[in-house]
């Protein structure tokens, strides 16, 4: 079981990492960062965020198997491409932009959910997770996250 967790440095993606480590520790977590370009700064940021996320996961679930992957290009296309080999995608419901206090799910997250090749779990700022199903329909996936700082 491979769970893909895309990372972009936002609080929302950090929540998704923690959620995945907590709820899918039996399989393998694939942490993905898509750098927009191959510039040194973009790559360094990607490496830093991936390593930081790996540590966050290990604090939560010591035995979880973690792989990291750094890709370059268009985030949505790469995410769709990588998801072909995965069983589940866990991602934040909002990125750096958007209106997290009004939109339950950002338009970008909703769009990605419709494009990727695996079921998607979206982690809300409340810690709840929802599953993408038929367009526009969402159901509660599991209980709320507990203990943010775990």
């Amino acid at each position, binding site marked *: 079981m491979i769970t893909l967790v895309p990372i972009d440095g936002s609080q929302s993606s950090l929540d998704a990492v923690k959620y995945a480590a907590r709820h899918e520790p039996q399989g393998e977590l694939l942490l993905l960062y898509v750098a927009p*370009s191959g510039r040194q700064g973009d790559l360094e940021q990607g490496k830093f965020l991936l390593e930081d996320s790996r540590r966050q996961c290990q604090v939560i679930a010591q035995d979880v198997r973690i792989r990291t992957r750094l890709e370059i290009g*268009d985030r949505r296309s790469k995410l769709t491409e990588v998801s072909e080999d995965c069983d589940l995608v866990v991602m934040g419901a909002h990125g750096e*932009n958007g*209106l*997290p*206090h*009004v939109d339950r799910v950002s338009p970008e997250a909703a769009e990605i959910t419709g494009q990727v090749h695996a079921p998607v779990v979206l982690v809300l700022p409340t810690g709840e997770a929802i599953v993408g199903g038929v367009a526009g329909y969402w159901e509660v996936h599991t209980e709320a996250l507990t203990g943010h700082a775990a």
Partner: protein
Amino acid sequence: MNSDFGVIGNGEMLAKVRADGAMTEAFYPSIGFFRHLVQSQFGVYQREKDECVWFAPPEFQTEQRYLEDTNVLQTSYLRPGLRARVVDFVHPDICGAVRTLEVQNTSDEPVTLDLFHTEASSVADHKGEFGYNVAYYNRLGNHVVRYRGHPWDKAIEAQVVWLISGVPQPDTYQCGVSYQGEGDTIDAFLDVRDGCLAENRYAFGDPTGATSALMWRRRLEPQQTCSVTVLLVSGMTLFDAEDSLNTLAARQPAQLLGETVTYWRGWLETGKRSLPNLHDARLEELYLRSILLLKLLQDRKYGSLIAAPTLSPDYRYCWPRDAVYLAWSLDRCGYHEEARKFYRWCKRTQMHDGLWYQNHYTDGRRHWAGIQVDQVATINWGIWQHFDLTRDRSFLVEMWPTVQRAANYLLTRTDPEVKLVFSEQDLWEETGGYLTYTNASAVAGLHAAASVAREVGQETDGARWRAAGDALKRQIYAKLVQDDYFVGELNPEQHFHMRKDYLLDISNLGLAVPFRVVPPDCPEMVRTVQLLEEAVDYPIDGVGRYPSDLFVGGNPWSLSAIWLGLYFAELGQVDEVYRHVNWCLKHAMLHDLIPEQSDKHTGAPASAAPLAWSHAWIIILLQELGRLIREVPDSWPPHPTGHE
């Protein structure tokens, strides 16, 4: 994904307002750092209908525009029974965003409305790892105080503070914990739904932050109008913020708006004098909007200019190369003081060996440490351009040590065996080498330094730099022309990081424009352009950087189109200039804001927007277009090219 938005600011504070009127980012005390505001929105609860809606689609038809010749935004709303508008601006002298909501009852019945403003902040880019995000309501001042607290130190005297105040005084308020669904500390965004706020005075959220709401109860007769204003004021300390708030609150919102409109219209007068006659209102609007945008992107305290007000990708820094082109553009529009201020920033931030690093925070601290030699050369070139436009010799005297160090640095970067300048990074920050663009800029930078030396009576240095520039130019012809065209690097087919080869690259045009190292009609350059145009065929047309580009998937860039337009302007080919300008305009966002890239399939804006140097270059291109129209009146309007 880029939503449409407008930008407002005053050089110390910068904020983005989406097309639906939601303010989503506000930066202070510099235009790049820190981001404090996540979301600020107006809404209304209508008692008769027991209905709560945000001022946003789909509940309202929405339209946004800038007030003419200003950086003041107006977002209009319409639905049956209600008409509204929000006017947004940052006062030119005081660090406060002013948001005025005006609502009119357009129905035949009286209505009872609870107008509200809600906000979520993340003071100092708080990410939940350290400290609390606090909101509390100061009943004495009747405003919300936002700061980043800490479990064992709640002092707020010495950190960035935001105050959110309502004019007139709101009837009720709430400070809540983000996403909390019930109780006294219910999230303010949720609390507004029934038109009744809990009036909790203190809330902190960790890690998700706190929210606040202000609410005004109004009864409007048919056709009656009312307005409320929210002041979002920041300061480096609580006392600074309170001083600013008191200053703003002492004036009526209409007066603040009047002062701001007057300021921008007055400031733009200079730019309007430089506006060429383009016989096309939209091109002229693009020209003026670009000037107004550049002003917003200059830090008024330090003079630096940022690449774009964007978090993703993060371009909130000053890249010296980009900023020189911004300064040149401002110079060419008559804003010499702004340009001078930037070059003084360069003087202050130059390292002892003459180098500037890859990019800097607006206050001058270095950020990314890559070495891009073209930036050093470009600053010398820009300093000379400033003098060329102003003839201000005292400026050259002031800048002489900077120019001298930069020119000598360029000499040290010339490989004694290869006889070309080597740079660790190209202008795209992807790969290093003996790069054509870098060498073109080095020739221009050395020649500019020689010209400066002549003006300040330092002939010995000048002769040395002139000779070095001439030698470099000869080497460019000797080594960078391969198969009868200019390649991008000395060994263009070696293994490169991030790209297949360095044969063709839009930056090869730098030899002709802007650095004028080779004439635009020399056969090698003509062939280069021909190959560049054939190299990539995008579904949406446009011009890319190079064929194997991976940046956000490899798309056409506005900058590439503009550079090609400039090249054709040098050749006097109006049709081609117009084609590239038109492509940029076609793919511009709301308010004619130009993105870095446009998705090659959909044409949607991609990567950073608005990109400052695209706006700087489009100003220059439009000036060139104006020149061509003036010189060859028969060339206008252009003939259809079949491309658009």
